């Protein structure tokens, strides 16, 4: 479906022109942006606080210091997170455990924000597979390898997944750096209890020798919808979108932007080989 739009779009480009225009946008009241994550991995729970800014403001986002960030769980844990650097808060005691629901409270001045997230039980990757794809269709002006991930969905309930493929770049000094990430959102509405295969990299292709970290991330329903809508709004240009753009629906209460995600992760490292 997207391909059709793409071809039609590229044909329209023939008779069209683009230019950068000046447009006056309202200056909306600044809102708190919360990026908060707890996972079953060894990374401690962390929260990053920033503020929204005017659309054409080219500065770095403002980091929010001095907030009181509290993490609690439904098994009785509670901890005030420590600000380790400007705007970054970490928990020291609480570790993400599958089956537990966590709540986050952020007190910023006289405003307070809350969110709950359930940390699901992890689902394991069955296998990954890569295969070559030529530059054959218009959308993919790229040749190279596609990577797919196969897993078996547990049948007992509705599951929500985020699949990340993170390419690791190795620079000239041999240091590893995070490269581009491809994300796929999927839920088992259509394949509950079955084995399913998803293509991970729709927008880019890999070269032989590339190192890719593949993650199968289990999340709860609200977090799934947040990332789903975030992805949808980021990938769209005005022309082919019909649903008017809107802020992604978040699990954060009281008008904050961002999310509080509880994730269980299964990871694999894939080195793309010649086939």
């Amino acid at each position, binding site marked *: *479906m*997207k*391909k*059709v739009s793409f*071809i*039609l779009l*590229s*044909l329209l480009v*023939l*008779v*069209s*022109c*683009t*230019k*950068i*225009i000046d447009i006056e*946008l309202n*200056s*909306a009241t600044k*809102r708190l*942006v919360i990026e908060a994550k707890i996972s079953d991995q060894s990374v401690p729970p962390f929260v990053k606080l920033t503020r*929204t*800014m*005017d*659309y*054409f*403001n*080219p500065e*770095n*986002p403002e980091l929010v210091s001095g907030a009181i960030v509290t993490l609690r769980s439904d098994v009785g844990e509670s901890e005030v997170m420590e600000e380790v650097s400007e705007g970054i808060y970490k928990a020291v005691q609480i570790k993400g455990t599958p089956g537990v629901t966590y709540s986050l409270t952020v007190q910023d001045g006289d405003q307070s924000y809350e969110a709950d997230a359930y940390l699901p039980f992890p689902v394991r990757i069955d296998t990954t597979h890569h*295969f*070559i794809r*030529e530059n*054959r*269709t*218009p959308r993919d002006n790229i040749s190279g390898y596609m990577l797919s991930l196969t897993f078996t969905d547990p049948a007992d309930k509705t599951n929500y997944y985020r699949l990340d493929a993170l390419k690791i770049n190795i620079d000239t000094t041999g240091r590893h750096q995070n490269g581009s990430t491809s994300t796929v959102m999927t839920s088992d*509405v259509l*394949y509950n209890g*079955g084995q*399913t*295969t998803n293509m991970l990299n729709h927008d880019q292709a890999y070269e032989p020798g590339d190192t890719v970290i593949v993650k199968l991330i289990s999340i709860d*329903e*609200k977090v799934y*919808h947040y990332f*789903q809508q*975030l992805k*949808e*709004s*980021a990938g769209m*240009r*005005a*022309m082919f979108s*019909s*649903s*008017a*753009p*809107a802020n*992604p*629906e978040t699990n954060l209460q009281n008008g904050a*932007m961002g999310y509080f995600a509880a994730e269980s992760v299964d990871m694999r490292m894939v080195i793309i080989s010649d086939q």
Partner: protein
Amino acid sequence: MISATVYVEELEAGLVTNQYGFYSLTIPDGQYTVRYSFVGYRSHTEQIVLNGHKQLNVEISPLVEQIDQVTIRAGGQNRNVKSAEISLIKLDMKEISQVPVIFGEKDILKSIQLLPGVKSAGEGNSGYYVRGGNADQNLILLDEAPVYNASHLMGFFSVFNSNAIKDVQLYKGGMPAKYGGRLSSVLDITMNDGNTKQFGASGGIGLISSNLTLEGPIIKDQGSFIVSGRRTYADAFLKFLPDSTISNTSLYFYDFNLKANYRVSDKDRIYLSGYFGRDVLGFKDLMNIDWGNSTGTIRWNHLFGNRLFLNSSFIYSNYDFKQGADFNDFSMSMLSGIEDYNLKEDFQFYFDSNNTFKWGGNLIYHSFMPGHVDSDFEGFIGTSVDDRYAWDAAVYLSHESKIGSRLQLNYGLRYSYFQPVGPGDYYTFDTYGIVLDTINYQKGETIAQYGGIEPRASVSFVLSEHNSIKASYNRNRQYVHLISNATSGTPLDSWIPSSNIVQPEVADQFALGYFRNFDNNTWETSIEAYYKNLQNQIEYKNGADLLSNPLIESQLVFGEGRSYGLELYVKKRTGKLTGWVSYTLSRTEKSFDEIDNGAWFPARHDRTHDFSITGIYQINPKMSFSASWVYYTGDAVTFPSGKYFVDSQLVNMYTERNGYRMPEYHRLDLGLNLITKKRDRYESSWNFSIYNAYARENAYSISFIQSEDDPNVTIAEQLSLFKIVPSVTWNFKF
């Protein structure tokens, strides 16, 4: 001939013919002078002695050299003032052929956009909005068959080949009771019948399309046929482009219209009409997409006695979209569409010269195919949604009455009924659109029942020969809905029926107008005001997941709408210079509980001011010059009011739905029609046109994106289409 005037001079009374050219007058015995007239045609007068029933079949011929003639003004020239019809637009096909258009392809859907109350869906687009209604709230009938997707090539062309069209009427309100099924308008298009006297051919060759029409008698004066075909070859130019993505793309459309009619007896006439059109988009041999409409109508006109006219129709409509893609090691296919079978009976009873009754009904069986996606890719889960089926029925009765010399009244009732039936799985959803429950229905099992009365009325009160006041009220119900993936129509749009979740849409419209003609009916003017209330309107929820979600109903929210406005229209009908000016002042708003907590917000196509002026100047009998200028203020649109970063990714922050406006739009088009040869049976002519003559860069869309150089810098990028598009077409006729 549709809407020709039949006027009895002695009685100063008359009427107009129906859409089959039929009329019936009941007057006392005596000697009369009956005049038949129609704009652009030589009027015909017949002396009759009436002593009992009499059948008069008359043929009138077009005025060949219109400008040299003294224009005929007969009873009926002020029909726009006298009739009860309000909010009705009749297009003169001859006039349309002279108005400049993009690519030189004359197009009724673009011509109606130059009239008040009708808004274009965007640059070069054949999609239109009527009085704040959505694009899917327009009923488009081609010889009575509904056309589900009226555009070719992303909306840049309409599916209607002007060469095959005889008559176009657009009801913006006050629809007669015989029409139903859509909320905001009825576009009733009648195809040409073909020449009953002699064979003829006509055609045109243009830069991106050509057409050919053949017509002639089946048996002279007993029946005729017409076949018209059209093909674009826009993609021929793509081959020369260096970009392999584009030069390997094929993109074209073609369509055929055909119609035949035959007079079986004085009381029976049979019509057969059909349309078939396809768009094709391909990329090498890897991907092939084609889509289009086909419609077919079989009609039988029968006359019972002298005053009761019956038309029986069997109508078929189909729209489908097919996509196939072939990758290295797997392939994918997709199929979606809608298909209707429709049986229709319409009676017209000419009680006397002041009273006409119309009644009838129809029964439609709809099949909806929301989309089958299939692939042989390993592990692929087909995302097929069950087909949907529904019965759609209606009955109506209406009365057209003249009371005294001043009052004309058309009123009626329509009762419509809709019943979605199995087989299929139907769902209920939670607020996130996740399936709560699935119910399986067997074949023919009732899923839901909807129905209701639709009152219709319009009245005119004639103040004098030259001016009148008119008013109308209509309630319409709509049971099928278009779910679109884009703001302008695309082939991927799919129709869905009302179901356990989607309720029928309902509209109530009031309109009031003042009509005045000047200078012996040379000038027609009107002013109309309307108010429309809309229920059960459909919108996507915030952040709806459209492309990857087969259960589209889970992504919808339901609310209400309102629309009101003022329309001004001035038309100069005759003389060397003809043309019209239209102005619309309007507002269209919607409210949904789920969007901004139910606050009223402007609809995406809300446009405050919309102005156009069109002029045709006949320089001499062989040359005419035309120009049109369009100006409108920007549509409502949602722009970001701030930004932030999540996981280092730029995210736009929005504050309210459609709180901004697109930049204003204006454009000038010019045209020149030149007849180079004109003999008895042969005519050759050229049409030159320039679209967007002063190269205005109108905003088609505005995107908010990150600068490639610095991710912290965000910019607004405007996309414009069609700067100057010159075109030339050669037309011939023999």
